[in-house]
């Protein structure tokens, strides 16, 4: 049987080439985002100060906020978490439509990867609010709905572990897996419905981010999405490999 190093996929490139190539690219892009965030992206303005100072030929009369730099990691991770949740929801629907085990596996792994990115989002978000406002948590709309999404993701695994019957477990998990992206959509859109100072809408036409902010952000976003895809692919290969090992061991023993 051809392993991933030799099995040809899209454009004739092997699975390994795609996976590790994407990992290398994602690593380089997120590292570039890290460097650009601190070396290129300008500091954002905070509270006003008593007088104006001239810095690099520009009049500045506000405090400059450094904690905002977490934006260049926090938002790409958060958007990636939303995307993975939608991927898991898609595979949940595919499972309910076809009842094929592979879709249940893909949905489970999608939610697992989403948990990793959700935790990273929560940590970076908490650090940001702590540095900037001195509070670890505020019950504002996006934070609250995102926290609900985190609880739904954790509950997904609690639900799976509480049901012994494989078929029933997969069906119930698939239904739950469809609920999670519904909350993800609410969490993403809520700041457009209920304005929030903690989560202003920056991804919009006609302003929001300067080019020196937008370019590092987009580099980081693309890199983080690649990394999320790589993590998903690696976990899928792990599951497929484990199943293959079980089959081979049965054949050898049988």
């Amino acid at each position, binding site marked *: 049987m051809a392993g*991933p190093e030799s099995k040809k996929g899209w454009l004739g490139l092997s699975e390994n080439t795609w996976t590790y190539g994407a990992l290398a690219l994602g690593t380089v892009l997120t590292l570039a985002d890290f460097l650009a965030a601190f070396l290129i992206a300008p500091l954002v303005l905070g509270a006003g100060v008593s007088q104006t100072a001239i810095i690099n030929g520009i009049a500045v009369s506000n405090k400059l906020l450094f*904690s905002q730099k977490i934006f260049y990691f926090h938002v790409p991770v958060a958007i990636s978490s939303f995307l993975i949740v939608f991927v898991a929801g898609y595979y949940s629907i595919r499972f309910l439509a076809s009842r094929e085990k592979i879709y249940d596996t893909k949905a489970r792994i999608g939610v697992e990867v989403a948990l990793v990115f959700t935790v990273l989002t929560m940590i970076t978000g908490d650090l940001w609010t702590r540095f900037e406002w001195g509070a670890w948590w505020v019950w504002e709309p996006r934070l609250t709905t995102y926290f609900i999404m985190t609880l739904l993701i954790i509950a997904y695994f609690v639900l799976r572990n509480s049901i012994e019957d494989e078929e029933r477990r997969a069906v119930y998990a698939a239904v739950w897996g469809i609920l999670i992206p519904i909350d993800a959509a609410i969490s993403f859109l809520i700041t457009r419905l209920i304005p929030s100072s903690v989560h202003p809408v920056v991804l919009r036409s006609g302003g929001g981010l300067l080019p020196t902010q937008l370019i590092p952000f987009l580099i980081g976003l693309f890199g983080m999405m690649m990394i999320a895809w790589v993590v998903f692919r690696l976990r899928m290969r792990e599951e497929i490999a484990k199943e293959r090992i079980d089959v081979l061991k049965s054949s050898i023993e049988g």
Partner: protein
Amino acid sequence: MQLDPILVEIYSTVFDAAPYVIAAYACLWLGLMVYIGFGVNRVSKLEKQIAVLEDSLARREGAA
């Protein structure tokens, strides 16, 4: 040399937050890379195990 007090006020959050923000960003990025590294390692070991088992099965079927 003493900094202009207005500049000190403007950069006050930068001086306090910079080490922690950079360290937090770096630690989280490294943590993610380490997690991926463990995943790559696990997959690599499993695929080597598959190769050994397939070879063993092929030899057994050949002998049979």
